[in-house]
């Protein structure tokens, strides 16, 4: 019986990759919080998941969408600092979660190999 590593690890490597890409995007929003005219962008988890579930696999071509701000600012910047920080923080926690799942999968495989 051969172990298919991709199947064994499940969806977590892909979500991990998504989380890193998203945190890059959110870091850009935070860095540009005071740049006039900057439009905040974000990645949507749902579209990536739909892509994977549809069996299309994971081709890493993420689509960035522009954020619709709750309030507009005078300099046309659409970064809302508090919300952006919250999203960044939550995204990092979600990353940590995927990482934990991945760790559990690996230790499961490890004990299966070692047999004890």
């Amino acid at each position, binding site marked *: 019986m051969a172990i298919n590593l991709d199947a064994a690890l499940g969806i977590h490597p892909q979500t*991990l*990759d998504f*989380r*890193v*890409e998203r*945190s*890059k*995007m959110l*870091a*850009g*929003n*935070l*860095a*540009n*919080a*005071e*740049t*006039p005219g*900057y439009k905040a*962008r974000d*990645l949507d988890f749902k579209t990536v998941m739909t892509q994977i579930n549809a069996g299309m696999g994971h*081709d*890493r*071509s*993420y689509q*960035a969408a522009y954020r619709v701000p709750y309030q507009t600012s005078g300099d046309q910047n659409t970064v809302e*600092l508090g919300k952006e*920080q919250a999203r*960044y*923080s939550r995204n*990092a926690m979600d*990353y*940590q979660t995927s*990482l934990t799942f*991945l*760790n559990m999968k*690996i*230790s499961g495989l*490890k004990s299966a190999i070692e047999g004890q």
Partner: protein
Amino acid sequence: MSFGEIYDIAGAGMHAQTIRLNTVASNLANAGAAAETPETAFRALKPVFSTIYKQTQEGQLSGAHVEVSAIVEADAPLDMRYEPNHPYADEQGYVAYSNVNTIDEMADMMAASRSFETNVEVMNRARSMQQGLLQLGSN
């Protein structure tokens, strides 16, 4: 996965805010400076931020970096004070002082240092994310 670009973005943000703090420092230092003529008077310096997107591989999204594209002089009117006994006074007895608004500069300084801290936090968090990834499967 591209952690490298997160560091670049946060670093660019920190750099931009440092330049802003530098201009604030020079503005505050020259706040009360009198000039011989209005033309030579010190005018407050203001950085102009702009976004740059780096070239990436096919299909990869670029993060939004920030840079200081220019440093311009504030066009607020100079502070003309009536001081007839001042050596720099003109025929009407007015002396040209710099147009630095100290309160504005203080507020700018707070905003810049907070923004700097935000970028530091972003970098710290990215680092701990990467550390977690490096320790994958070690326990």
